[in-house]
């Protein structure tokens, strides 16, 4: 079994329901039915990642553990502010250090008013600084993070700059 299929099988155990094709960003509700949680194979030459996983916020730690056991490393954590849908999205990118290449993108949507996601810094210490940065820019609280303070803005800043409704 190739690496992509192997990882897909390992992750699919966390998502017992079948997955529909991915909905494009920003157009989910109009054109296609919204996608259920699940693991979908994407075109790596176009999108850069081989697998796209849409999960609930409470599942991110389980997904991180599966990928840690398979030998992936955490490449980046980004936040996206979907202002019109009232949601924040946290995107985790995992990649392999050497050997065959496979990039897995894990996305989790949280409510914009009370954004809280469990931290994965217990599994990947790299997440420590990435989650601090996402908190700094968006105000997403990562539960049980060892040191959730601002990293790039001054410590006494009282705004989250990358929110779409922020303009100085």
């Amino acid at each position: 079994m190739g690496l992509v299929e192997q990882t897909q099988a390992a992750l699919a155990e966390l998502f017992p329901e079948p997955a529909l094709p991915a909905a494009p960003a920003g157009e989910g509700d109009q054109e296609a039915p919204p996608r259920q949680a699940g693991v979908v194979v994407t075109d790596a030459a176009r999108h850069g990642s081989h697998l796209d996983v849409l999960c609930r916020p409470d599942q991110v730690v389980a997904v991180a553990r599966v990928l840690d056991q398979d030998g992936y490393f955490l490449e980046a954590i980004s936040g996206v502010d979907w202002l019109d849908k009232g949601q924040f999205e946290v995107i985790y990118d995992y990649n392999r250090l050497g050997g065959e290449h496979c990039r897995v993108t894990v996305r989790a949507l949280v409510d914009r008013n009370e954004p809280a996601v469990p931290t994965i810094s217990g599994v990947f210490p790299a997440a420590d600084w990435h989650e601090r940065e996402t908190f700094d820019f968006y105000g997403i609280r990562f539960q049980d993070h060892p040191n959730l303070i601002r990293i790039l803005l001054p410590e006494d800043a009282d705004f989250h700059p990358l929110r779409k409704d922020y303009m100085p």
Partner: protein
Amino acid sequence: MTVPVHLRHDETFVLNLGPQHPATHGVLRVKLTMDGEYIVKAEPVLGYIHRMHEKMAENGTFAQFMPNTARMDYLHALAFNHGWALVVERAAGIEVPERAEYIRVITVELNRIASHLLWWAAFLLDLGGFTPLLYAFDDREKIIDLLERVTGSRLTYCYLRFGGVYNDIDDEFIAGTRDFIKRLRGRMPRLYHDLVTHNIILIKRIKDIGFVTAEQCRRYGATGPVARGSGIDYDIRKNEPYSVYPEFDFDVPVFTEGDSMARYMVRMHEMEQSMRIIEQALDKLPGGPVMGKAPKVLKPEAGYYYSAVETARGSLGHRLVCNGDKNPYKLKLRSPTFSNLSLFGEVAEGMLLADALAFMGSLDLVIPEIDR
């Protein structure tokens, strides 16, 4: 590997390294809790040069972000240009002509050599040697002259466009590049290796200092020469090929010791491999246009896109989220040095302060890239 020392935590003091310090390569502040000369806890504090690149990406068009890419890591600015051009070309489906791809590779590799030369000079300046800076800057000025002929800038290049490059290279550039490679190859054994690499003072200062294991690299996401110095064979130009790199025959230097000497040797060998790539590219350079067809107003299809390129410091990623508009909806820049520096806190525990600075120099930090 930490030095086994009995650390009395009740007799420690806090020492502030930076933000203005000759050896921190920019504005980095490290809060050090010290017991005498030994570090008990090291905590880097970032944000002193945070210049809002991600916010500027959301409020401008795709083309307007190209100058920003050069200001992040100004030492390897063309690779940052390349990463941005790559992700937008993937998202919008723009084709790049072959001659443009070859020119991109030649200029990016020349810039990589210039970046490693400056790293070498600054590293030795941190350790107390001033002369290598003069030799390295002399060679670097030759590269800058060549690149200035084609791009117009000395440091912060904005040379790549979506679909190619905006200016073609001429015969004088090609002849000048070949002369430069011959010159650098001639100077390397005596001025670089005899004077510095085999120097007993350098060896005593960086050999067996700052051990980073492969597992630490994976847990912290360290890539580039930091990972290759710890035995991990990971180079995006080979593992996730982009542009025309598959057509060239070059090696990826990997050293397994994991100390600062290994990272030093990785970068010295990388300069030689870059010269090999440039020679092959100049020999195989095809004719044709240097700019493909790109729409005037770029509106890529909505979706999630990622591109990774290998810069002098590691894997640079662009995480782009488009929603069909003429501005990017969200751009996240995955900076290689951000991840490389995050292992400083764990590795520097128990080290002598002077050794910690040698270790920091071997990580090759550029702070504006960390802070974006």
